[in-house]
């Protein structure tokens, strides 16, 4: 297989894709736009390093991915990621034996309609609930659930310990499930 780079086609072929990719992970229009620009420019400057193994799109995406991680690292330097014990209080009764609280416990009827929803309806709900997560939790969950990155890579990007990482994943998952559940049953 012979992959070649065609930079004159980059903007028309990949700008929208890369922009969507960055926007989902950065959540700022301006920053996402700048990252796309930087990706194309650094791709162009580093064309000599392209080995032709990955296709053009994958190659450009991996450049963008590294730039996104750089942004995460920068952010981690200025603001520490913290999770409070009280963040779990809504879900589990911490006074007693850490059982589910009545308000947050899943029941057999909840989420049952998820797979029957129209694609765009489901997208709307999942989007809304992802966006309600604190920004860093959304970024961490995205890296794990969608990009399937190694835990180690994610911990480095956000400057967190594996134990903190799992607390975030756990907490984010509880909140997402709860949010989708409540949205489905109140809409």
């Amino acid at each position: 297989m012979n992959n070649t780079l065609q930079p004159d086609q980059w903007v028309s072929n990949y700008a929208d894709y890369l922009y969507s990719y960055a926007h989902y992970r950065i959540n700022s229009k301006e920053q996402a736009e700048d990252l796309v620009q930087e990706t194309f420019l650094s791709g162009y400057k580093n064309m000599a390093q392209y080995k032709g193994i990955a296709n053009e799109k994958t190659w450009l995406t991996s450049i963008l991915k590294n730039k996104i991680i750089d942004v995460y690292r920068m952010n981690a330097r200025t603001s520490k990621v913290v999770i409070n014990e009280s963040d779990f209080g809504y879900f589990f009764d911490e006074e007693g034996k850490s059982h589910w609280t009545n308000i947050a416990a899943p029941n057999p009827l909840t989420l049952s309609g998820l797979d029957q929803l129209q694609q765009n309806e489901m997208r709307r709900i999942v989007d809304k609930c992802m966006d309600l997560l604190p920004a860093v939790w959304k970024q961490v969950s995205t890296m794990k659930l969608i990009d399937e990155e190694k835990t180690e890579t994610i911990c480095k990007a956000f400057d967190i310990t594996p134990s903190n990482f799992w607390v975030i994943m756990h907490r984010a998952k509880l909140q997402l499930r709860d949010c989708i559940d409540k949205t489905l049953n109140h809409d």
Partner: protein
Amino acid sequence: MIKKATVNNMEGKKKFMITCREATELTVISEFEKLSFSRRISLWFHMLICKVCHLFQQQSNELNEAIKKNEEGKSLSLSLEKKEEISLLLNELRK
């Protein structure tokens, strides 16, 4: 080296009976990593006796699928102005 993931609440304590909070954390971890034998047994036993956590386990899996599918179909458009700007910059470089 990064040490193996530990459930914060369980650190140091090796106990067979775990709480719902611990069980759900182990559930999330087990979606990505292999748990130690004793944790697997604790989780398995908890799931036998706790219907709510068992449901969480099922729904958590469905959620993973939904989130993955959700991002795949995403398509936003980069503004025309920005596209032109980038094209110009690339042209400059090519000279």
